[in-house]
């Protein structure tokens, strides 16, 4: 029988939520790694028993747990993330040069075909990979050493590489996003990179249409159309139909186009989801109402999804890695909030239930659909 496993990273540990394919009754296990920040967890597409996690705190640094049994037990693998070569500097908040310093892993992205091959996006922004199950990590330094690297500046959350998307038809093509540098693409497996930010307009930077400097919050892709990407930028929801060569705005009738998450329906590549946040200075949902907005037209035309979600006195945030979908039919949609709730919809967003309500602040939500 099919099932769903939801991997929830929080400010104070990790939780694993399991249900059968009906998605009605949930078993909650955790906290794993109690007291530690779990920025992200993700399972291997080729072996769902293999799960990688990013575990960190400000005192004791970065740890990388790995599970080979679907999150029941964990072992610690390699946590040595050393930048390649002379690290040089990026731009600090005031524009002055600042040395690159490793702080934490924001995102782990297992490769599509090999459970031992995994990527990690880190702060200060760089991309690492491991080909031995996370024991050893090597920087794909062509990204950080791009000519524009010295101009990259941290966003409010730090200079973080938070999104890694692998083209399922061509694993040599990878998209990443960095706050606040922008989106980048490699077509040679990570050796060389190009900024793909044409069409973005960020009025808070000196040159609003610069090649880099854009605070991209999240990218999303449907695996059937890897040249179509959707982006939640600091402000603005964007799409590209040519693998990032050019972007157009699709914010349309959203009540605010600031936000963090964006995701795509598992079976409808033009159906996308966002959670608008009031503003960059007020990181909570608009009007005290928790609303997911769905577009069935690939953007521009949005409908509010509210059934089962609090519609008054709600002031939570939904962070960039905290939304995911399953691939059952109908498609399930999941997201976690800064208030510790994990909401799930088993009908593509038409209705929602809190499958767990009082966790620590949720940093990330990933879903595994189990055969």
């Amino acid at each position, binding site marked *: 029988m099919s099932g769903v496993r939801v991997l929830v990273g929080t400010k104070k540990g990790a939780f694993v939520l399991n249900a059968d394919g009906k998605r009605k009754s949930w078993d909650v296990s955790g906290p794993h*790694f*109690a*007291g*530690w920040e779990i920025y992200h967890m993700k399972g291997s597409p080729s072996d769902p028993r293999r799960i990688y996690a990013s575990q960190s*705190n*400000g*005192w*004791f*640094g*970065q*740890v990388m747990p790995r599970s080979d049994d679907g999150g029941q037990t964990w072992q*610690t693998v390699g*946590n*040595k993330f*050393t930048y390649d070569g002379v690290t040089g500097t990026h731009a600090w908040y005031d524009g002055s040069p600042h040395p690159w310093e490793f702080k934490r892993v924001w995102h782990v992205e297992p490769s599509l075909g090999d459970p031992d091959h995994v990527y990690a996006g880190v702060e200060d922004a760089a991309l690492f990979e491991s080909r031995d199950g996370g024991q050893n990590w090597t920087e794909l330094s062509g990204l950080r050493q791009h000519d524009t690297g010295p101009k990259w500046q941290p966003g409010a959350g730090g200079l973080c590489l938070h999104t890694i998307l692998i083209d399922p038809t061509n694993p040599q093509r990878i998209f990443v996003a960095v706050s606040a540098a922008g989106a980048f693409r490699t077509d040679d497996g990570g050796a060389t990179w190009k900024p793909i930010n044409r069409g973005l307009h960020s009025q808070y930077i000196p040159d609003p249409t610069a090649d880099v400097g854009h605070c991209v919050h999240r990218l999303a892709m449907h695996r059937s159309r890897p040249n179509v990407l959707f982006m939640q930028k600091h402000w603005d929801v964007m799409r590209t139909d040519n693998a990032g060569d050019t972007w157009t705005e699709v914010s349309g009738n959203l009540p605010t186009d600031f936000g963090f998450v964006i995701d795509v329906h598992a079976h409808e590549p033009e159906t996308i989801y966002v959670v608008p946040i009031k503003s960059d200075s007020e990181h909570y949902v608009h009007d005290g109402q928790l609303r997911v907005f769905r577009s069935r037209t690939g953007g521009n035309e949005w409908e509010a999804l509210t059934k089962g979600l609090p519609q008054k006195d709600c002031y939570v945030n939904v962070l960039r890695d905290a939304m995911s979908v399953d691939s059952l039919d109908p498609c399930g949609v999941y997201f976690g909030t800064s208030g510790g709730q994990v909401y799930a919809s088993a009908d593509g967003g038409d209705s929602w239930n809190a499958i767990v309500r009082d966790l620590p602040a949720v940093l990330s939500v990933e879903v595994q659909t189990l055969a």
Partner: protein
Amino acid sequence: MIRVVLPPPLRLLAQTGPEITVDVTGAVTQRTVLDAVERRYPMLRGTMRDHDTQRRRPLVRFFACEDDLSNDAPDTPLPAAVARGDEPLLIIGAIAGG
């Protein structure tokens, strides 16, 4: 036998109780004790000191015999009571935040 008290987050990581013991041959210093701790508990590598520079992480502190030894050089001998196993080396997460 050297006694070492770990802070709660590292006990969780190493899956131990509050106090562990390690054997050190030769001089008993911060460096040789931490080397021995990391050999026995490799999951603690990088959590107390930097992988490459071996410098103490900024919010990790070392105490023994009621003295703060955090800023001692790593090759400075630890107090004789620690070397004899009478007193533990305390590894502490600095009190920070609110």
